[in-house]
């Protein structure tokens, strides 16, 4: 630990926060691991049609609620003929209770690149469910990969909208000051005094039925951004108001720089660190918001899919009790949230040392 006394206070605080702030900062590997996890997830979503072994909407009515299959490594002698990996087929023995029997004697080989997919059986009709299947016999793995396209991009698009709006409002309020500032900040206070989730529910009543999936998606993101820009604006306003009278800004003004130039070149950079950190940390909020809405049946609707809408299958208690693999999308949501939190925390320690001691 560094003793107080030497150096700038800001530097002292930064080093100190790094030493004392627990899990984060001390272990940059957590940030590296998070980044790796996120890259994998986003890549899988981006190349969904190739990564997913099946069409997400392909139904296999003869294989409802099939449990996940174990992936086996083939003995090396068979690699040349049958490929590296195989699964044992499952047979529905009790269609009422959805009980399956694994046929240990038979094998379904899986090939890399088969039928133009990452890892799939060569027979397009083979019932291979590595993560199990849902009530309609749809492959959960394929649905997860495709649903990730919605769930993962909600965060990025939402943050893009809310941070641009928040930055703009905050910069204007902080730089112009006076009555504009007062009005904008009162507006922010109203937005922040809203009971967010209740308001989100009320807002989702506006989503008219019969929109295309893309339109629904955009509307949901817009609704969530509408709720979340205010907190962003307030902090940016504080930073901008603090920087406004600093020497380098005054110098720029004295040199006759135009207001947009001052704002872009001299004022905004001060808020950039905060903006990056706050954006990263607010991505999970959007993902969770979309999941919650879709889970409650207000967001993404069938036949398009997101992790939240998949999870709504687990709301049925019988399903939850008997088919725990329906919870898989929840695990992905949790993992994504965690990864963004680790990453955001690490970025905060690096980019925004003043915030480390704050909340």
């Amino acid at each position, binding site marked *: 630990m560094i003793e107080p006394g030497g150096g700038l206070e800001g530097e002292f605080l930064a080093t100190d926060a790094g030493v004392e702030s627990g899990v984060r900062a001390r272990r940059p590997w957590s940030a590296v691991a998070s980044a790796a996890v996120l890259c994998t997830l986003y890549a899988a979503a981006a190349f969904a049609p190739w990564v997913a072994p099946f069409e997400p909407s392909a139904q296999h009515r003869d294989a409802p609620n099939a449990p996940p299959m174990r992936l086996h490594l083939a003995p090396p002698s068979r690699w040349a003929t049958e490929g590296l990996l195989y699964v044992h087929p499952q047979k529905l023995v009790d269609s009422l209770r959805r009980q399956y029997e694994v046929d240990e004697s038979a094998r379904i080989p899986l090939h890399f690149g088969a039928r133009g997919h990452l890892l799939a059986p060569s027979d397009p009709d083979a019932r291979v469910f590595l993560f199990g299947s849902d009530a309609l016999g749809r492959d959960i793995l394929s649905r997860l990969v495709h649903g990730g396209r919605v769930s993962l991009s909600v965060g990025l698009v939402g943050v893009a909208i809310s941070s641009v709006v928040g930055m703009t409002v905050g910069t204007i309020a902080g730089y112009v000051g006076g009555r504009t500032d007062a009005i904008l900040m009162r507006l922010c206070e*109203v937005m922040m005094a809203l009971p967010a989730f209740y308001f989100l529910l009320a807002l989702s009543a506006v989503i008219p039925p019969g929109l295309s999936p893309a339109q629904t998606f955009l509307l949901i993101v817009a609704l969530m951004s509408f709720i979340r820009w205010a907190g962003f604006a307030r902090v940016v306003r504080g930073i901008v108001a603090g920087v406004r009278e600093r020497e380098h800004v005054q110098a720029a003004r004295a040199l006759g720089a135009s207001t947009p130039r001052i704002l872009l070149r001299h004022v905004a950079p001060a808020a950039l660190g905060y903006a990056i950190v706050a954006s990263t940390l607010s991505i999970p909020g959007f993902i969770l918001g979309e999941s919650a809405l879709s889970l409650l049946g207000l967001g993404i609707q069938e036949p398009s899919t997101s992790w939240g809408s998949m999870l709504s299958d687990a709301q049925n208690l019988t399903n939850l009790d008997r088919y725990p693999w329906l919870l898989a999308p929840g695990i992905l949501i949790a993992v994504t949230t965690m990864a963004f939190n680790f990453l955001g925390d690490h970025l905060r320690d690096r980019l925004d040392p003043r915030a480390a001691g704050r909340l």
Partner: protein
Amino acid sequence: MLTFLARRLVQMVPLLVGITFLSFLIVGLAPGDFFSSLAMNPTIAPEAIEAMKREFGYGQPLVVRYLAWLSRAVRGDLGLSAAHRVGVATLIGQRVGNTLVLAVSAMLVTWLLAIPLGVLVAMRRGRPTDRLLSLLAFLGMSVPNFFLAFLLLRLALQTGWFPVGGTVSIDHDQLSLGGRLLDRLHHLALPTLVLATSGVAGLMRLMRGAILDLEKSDFVRTARAKGLPERTVLFRHVLRNALNPFVTLAGYELGTLLGGAALVENVMNLQGLGSLMLQAVLAADVYLVMGSVLMGSILLLLGNLLADLALTRVDPRIDFSSLEAVR
């Protein structure tokens, strides 16, 4: 103090008007017509619907309708729920108690766990206890509420240790007073745990940080130099100061809890304000939606006010005038 209270309550009025107007604007945009769904119900006389249309300013501009709603709301009449065919105020009255009990119990559990745990990890900093609990805290903060609810529901289904959904058992009314209380607590346990988890994790980390910051301050060093026993230093000097930011947070926590409660109520099948709100939204039950938003906002604002009041108790340096200055 009374003038402070009065002023804060008056300040809430424009805020509430702003919130409700915004909601009205949004709900007004919603597709589906409240009255057309009423008209499809053969048990409601057309004359009654005509009367309601007049009362609520049907067909008039949005602002007029809002004012009509507002003037009735001020008198405690929040309109009629189309789906339930009872007054909105009655419905909300039945449900809001459950949500409050859930939010308050979650808050109590959060504080009772977070403060001692925060002190513990701060005292054991850098050791295995600290690392383990800090890691758990990170997990707790990252696991979504609703997912945790699913996991615990599954635990309840598999083990039968806890009731699945609902606020009371079927035979609740036949139980003795103590039995009823236990029954309620039994039903409350899992939802409370779900709601409290992220709060415990977050506050524990903050507590740890606050204590470690204070440990370096001059007055703590002085207290140690005076030869005060470590316990006195910790509880009288460090802890009292570390608690300040938490009291402020408590008010904001309530907002998170209300939102979280709404979700958990729906997932765990509890009869609260949040599940009422969802039903209202799904049924395009306009006045029920408005009433729930209003109720939620009032709870939130009152929570913030209570937190400010508590702050003046905990920290003698903060008085009412300084609280006003902050605003």
